[in-house]
């Protein structure tokens, strides 16, 4: 089985610049422009969040597109689905009634109430119009990556080796 791709975050590289948050909101705007987007109503909204773990340690978190999504099980209008091929968890806005059952059960707390735009649930959609999500492309420190779990773990393991090696010197 091919592992599905999602957004991973290397906490050691995150400097909490919030570029991911801005890139996300811009990508989901009508004008796709940072400055013009600020004039849009309803305001463009971010779907990824920089969270602090401890002082100076942060990570950017968006929907994890869970293998067994609790939001999908909780949704009482059946508007949340998981694509069996890509693994992507999607909200069908046309069927969302704003009951917030998805928010109620999200283990990561990254679904928002879009109360200024028709009262719909809002979360990361992996930027359907792009090859790689806007947050990943915009991240100036390459903290974020768009890859499969195996690719991510392999890469991190190698990076660790390099780090340990250079440290010994």
């Amino acid at each position, binding site marked *: 089985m091919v592992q599905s791709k999602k957004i991973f975050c290397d906490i050691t590289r995150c400097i909490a610049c919030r570029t991911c948050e801005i890139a996300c909101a811009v990508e989901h705007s009508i004008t796709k422009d940072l400055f013009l987007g600020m004039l849009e109503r309803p305001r463009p909204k971010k779907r990824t969040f920089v969270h602090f773990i401890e002082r100076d340690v942060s990570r950017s978190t968006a929907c994890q597109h*869970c293998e067994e999504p609790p939001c999908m099980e909780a949704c*009482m209008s059946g508007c949340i689905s998981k694509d069996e091929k890509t693994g992507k968890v999607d909200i069908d806005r046309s*069927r969302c009634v704003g*009951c*917030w*059952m998805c928010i109620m059960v*999200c*283990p990561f707390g990254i679904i928002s109430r879009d109360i200024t735009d028709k009262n719909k649930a809002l979360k990361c959609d992996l930027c359907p119009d792009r090859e790689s999500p806007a947050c990943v492309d915009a991240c100036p420190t390459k903290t974020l990556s768009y890859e499969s779990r195996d690719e991510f773990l392999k890469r991190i393991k190698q990076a660790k080796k390099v780090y340990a090696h250079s440290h010994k010197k």
Partner: protein
Amino acid sequence: MPTHIKNNIYAIIGNSAAGLAAIESIRRVDQSSRIVNISNQPQRPYSRCLLSYYLAGQYDKDILWIRPEDYYKKYDTEVLLNTAVTGADIKNKTLEISGKKKISFDKLLIATGASAKFLNIKGADKKGVFVLRTLEDADGILRMLPNVKNACILGGGLIGLRAAYALKRRGVAVHVIVKSEHIFSQMLDAEAADIMRQHLEVNGIEISTGLEAAEISGKDSVDGVILDDGNRLDCQLIIIGKGVAANLGIVKGQVKTDMGILADERLETDRKDIYAAGDAAQAYDVLEEKNNVNQIWPAAIRQGKIAGLNMAGEEIKYEGSYGTNSLDFFDLAVMSFGVVKPKGGGFEELIALDAKRRLYRKIVVKGERIVGGVLINDVERHGILLHLALQKIDISDIKDILADEYFDFGKVIPLIKRQANLFIRPEYKDTCVTYSPLY
């Protein structure tokens, strides 16, 4: 893919959340056996939970259909709609359905759901008295609406107040009569209930607590309700929201029941090959730590899914149920889970209240574990707390910030690292592989 062709007959009574989830999970692991789905509802599957949204006129009827029209074809399932199960012979594994027909089965799922409790007071049989449980109920109320100026809602729980909200949005003057001292007495603590009550009243819904309807007046149709304090309210419509009770009729006396059909870790009843899920079932509640009925959509889906897998021969353990709910009235959201009004010793309540901004967060802790909580307005992190509770995470390291407005998923990362074996979802690990204070 299955390694061998199975040749079972699965009978599933009920085609709401639990029944549908079971069909879907059975078909994931068994594509060859027969599935027969029986429902007393005449329509294709719809979401009861959305009835109040439909009643409010916020959405068309189309929103109710939670599965596509070709659903049964897609899942290769024989469906008997508008069909009552009139008897069940568990020993010989046969069901008797309306028209005296018989259906034999190898495995049975009882997902018969629950029915709205009715009120047995004088005049309750008059025209204009409703519950809100089925599509017929909602359509019946809608047909009456052109002639309704005032409505009385009997009951201050979830359904009662959702119905009140819906009617208010339709321009009806609504008065809610609540027996308890507070609204949402099951779901919320007194403080949260008061915030919600004030919000509902400001938005034009009248609420009286500590009162009960004694009699419904009128000739053939309702023209008012007489309360137990002697006062009378004029109304042309009454909706009873006194909760629901599990539908046990078919199997009562044949399988073990309490408030619901008792289901074990595999969601099997005390009789082999007979399973129960959804509003009709009673399973172990991991937050209340006792057997409990949790008649909510997410529990029904989860139970249906697990029951279906076990019926199809998998060995899947149900992690247990829990109570939780989410409501939104006039743009104010409220959510709660688990124990909200702790009784007895050993509980600790972490509370943050900002009345002006209508922010309320209460987290109930017992033995350094979260067992319940209530959130108003700032609800986005409800799920984080819920999962900390369900996985029985020791939260002593972050207890001082749990109720904080700035609490977010980042604060959970160190706990995942330290209590890795308790965080079961693979996604938890994904979020913290690169986190190490010594990295």
